[in-house]
């Protein structure tokens, strides 16, 4: 029996995993992947079966924890946003080498158009590099179905499987048919070949040769995957290779059916035989894929001699930003201006009276008061620099604060401030949130403590992971202890409430620590206004 439900792509994947005998879900919050673990946390089966669903400190610890569960023969998922793949890269790339025992899905949610991210990197490149097969669902139902399929694929090949999502699938809802009866969980069982789990050179050399063979097997499996298909078309002037979500835009362009032959790809390595057949039969090929030109680059090769290939590199499709039904429509219009089945739509001009409305820190947010006091103090110095980080407080870059000079990645505020202080910069101020601090700030702080670098680290502690909607923060209640434990001097680990009425006290504290010729940590604390409201409503 199946039941229809309305689910986000993220939720459909999570439900698919739960129904396929999941034993542990791991993640660090990050848009657009956050809802995967949140769904697992809120599902009754999680409590009933004791499925692991606690947030991890960062994406690397999450992947390693999921791999430990797989080592014991159980099915695990680990989810993150695309830039989280960078944090997890060491563990992820080497998980291809150890392989998986229980089925393991690594879910990388890419964010083309950078709705809530600092770049447009495409997780498929990581999988190819790590010799890990990839699944790329095109719709919410495939998200659901691919969880079970992915676990089975992972167990068959003995390798983790990457599931690549994109924002428009992660955060789009549709009707999904889901099983009513969840599968049993795997019992504990250990790897058949324990040697490959100890990646010492002698073992690794042997394993690497095997992994390359297994990846060839994965390529064979792509040819017969239920998620890859070859659909013939009468017009052979063009063949289409379309991957993942982009398939929907192709179908939107041709509601009456696509006149050209189509290879739909949702499982990688790319099905070479299927695509070869398409290239043999058609005069040219158009590659439509969300994100970077991953498939297109492979089809072209270095010399690009075999066939005419159109796509993002030749300019028919935009090189930056996410695809839309309009950009796919326009690509066909460029290639075949007279194609009769292309619908023409009248589009009115954009209104000239609207103004941009950028996001801003909430009214009543403690970060506002930290920036207010910090800006007022820094006016007293000639050339202050403030090194920012990833979180709501990145919005401090915008007016009216214009308070930060850099934002690179999780944790980089502390380490970039240190490098700048090493270069002679004074004042060098790092501003970082509590969750980002425990994600990737602690190790950098240790560097600065060991050298007593003259800089100030402000941990703007709102007791939550705010930007992604208020998930538990791993350091809550122990930020000062962590700093002291790392060796910060107790006289220069100072705490203040980031309240408007303490503006002058905050200024005084900032000034004292900027003038101290060594490392200081200031914990400015106030609960996130969003979670505070939620807590207040619960109490009522």
């Amino acid at each position, binding site marked *: 029996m199946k039941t*229809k*439900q*309305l689910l986000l792509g993220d939720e459909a994947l999570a439900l698919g995993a739960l129904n396929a005998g999941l034993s542990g879900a791991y993640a660090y919050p990050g*848009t*657009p992947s*956050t*809802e995967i673990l949140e769904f697992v946390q809120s599902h009754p089966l999680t409590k009933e079966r004791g499925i692991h669903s606690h947030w991890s400190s960062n994406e690397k610890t999450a992947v390693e924890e999921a791999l430990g569960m797989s080592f014991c023969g159980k099915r695990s998922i680990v989810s993150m946003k695309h830039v989280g793949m960078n944090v997890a890269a060491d563990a992820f790339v080497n998980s291809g080498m150890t392989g998986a025992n229980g089925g393991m899905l690594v879910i990388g949610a890419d964010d083309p158009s950078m*709705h*809530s991210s600092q770049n447009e990197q495409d997780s498929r490149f990581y999988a190819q590099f790590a010799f890990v097969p990839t699944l790329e669902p095109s719709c919410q139902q495939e998200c659901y179905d691919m969880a079970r399929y992915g676990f089975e694929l992972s167990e068959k090949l003995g390798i983790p499987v990457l599931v690549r999502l994109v924002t*428009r*699938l992660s*955060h*789009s*809802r*549709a*009707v999904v048919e889901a099983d009513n009866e969840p599968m049993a969980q795997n019992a504990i069982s250990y790897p058949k070949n324990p040697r490959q789990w100890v990646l010492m050179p002698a073992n690794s050399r042997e394993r690497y040769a095997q992994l390359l063979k297994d990846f060839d097997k994965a390529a064979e499996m792509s040819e017969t995957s239920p998620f890859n298909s070859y659909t013939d078309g009468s017009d052979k002037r063009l063949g289409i290779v379309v991957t993942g*979500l982009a398939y*929907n*835009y192709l*179908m*939107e362009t041709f*509601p009456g059916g696509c006149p050209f032959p189509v290879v739909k790809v949702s499982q990688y390595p790319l099905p070479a035989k299927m695509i070869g057949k398409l290239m043999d039969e058609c005069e040219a090929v158009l590659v439509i894929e969300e994100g970077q030109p991953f498939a297109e680059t492979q089809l072209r090769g270095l010399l690009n001699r075999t066939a005419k290939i159109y796509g993002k590199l030749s300019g028919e499709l935009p090189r930056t930003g996410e695809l*839309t*039904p*309009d950009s796919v*429509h326009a690509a066909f219009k460029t290639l075949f201006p007279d194609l009769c089945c292309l619908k023409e*739509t*009248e*589009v*009115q*001009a*954009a*209104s000239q*009276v*609207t*103004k*941009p*409305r*950028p*996001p*801003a*820190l*909430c009214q009543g947010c403690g970060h506002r008061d930290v920036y207010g006091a910090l800006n007022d103090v820094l006016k007293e110095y000639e050339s202050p620099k403030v090194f920012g980080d990833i979180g*709501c407080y990145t*919005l401090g870059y915008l007016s009216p604060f214009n308070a930060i000079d850099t934002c690179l990645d999780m944790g980089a505020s502390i380490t970039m401030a240190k490098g700048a202080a090493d270069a002679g910069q004074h004042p060098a101020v790092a501003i970082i949130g509590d969750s980002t601090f425990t994600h990737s700030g602690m190790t950098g702080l240790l560097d600065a403590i060991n050298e007593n670098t003259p800089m100030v680290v402000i941990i703007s502690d709102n007791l939550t992971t705010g*930007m*992604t*909607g208020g998930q538990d923060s791993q350091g809550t209640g122990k930020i000062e202890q962590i700093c002291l434990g790392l060796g910060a001097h107790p006289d220069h680990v100072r705490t203040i409430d980031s309240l408007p009425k303490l503006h002058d006290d905050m200024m005084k504290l900032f000034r004292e620590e900027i003038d101290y010729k060594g490392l200081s940590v200031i914990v400015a604390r106030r609960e996130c206004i969003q979670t505070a409201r939620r807590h207040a409503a619960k109490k009522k």
Partner: protein
Amino acid sequence: MKTDIVLAGVGGQGILSIATILGAAALKENLYLKQAEVHGMSQRGGDVSSNLRLSSEPIASDLIPLGGADLIVSLEPMEALRYLPYLSKNGWIVTNTAPFVNIPDYPEQSVLENELANQPNVVAFDMDELAKEVASQRASNMVLLGAAAPFIDLEPEKIEEGIRIVFGKKGEAIVESNIKAFRAGLEKAKSISK
């Protein structure tokens, strides 16, 4: 049937509950639905939109093509105007006229009114006001949903069913107050669009 809707507003205003209600109603009616929404950074007081597509036939794209929307439904007048290129030739704009001013260069009210008046099919009134009158200001998104209902290929009773499903857990009083706001919006829109 097919209705493609661009939902618009400012982060935190509550456009997603409108989507949730229509989703619940569509699921009950066994319709196809796709609804793309925006989470993350832009929810912090920035402009937000959601594409909601309802159909009796399978839907391909999660996003509505330019010139394809049957409806722009907005909780804020300037946000309604942001999506004009998505509106189809015979499409309708249903919008709250109460401005949400959180930027320094927000246009004059008269500029927005004129721009809206240039559009052929518009239902625009102060929904915060009406919500306050019949329920509470928090229910202005239900007034908006009611005002949009005549242009959605789904009977108002079925949308009310969606309200019951979504707010049911919160108790009968909340359900009734939301339905009251919904009906008030519906009546007002009918009287304007005649």
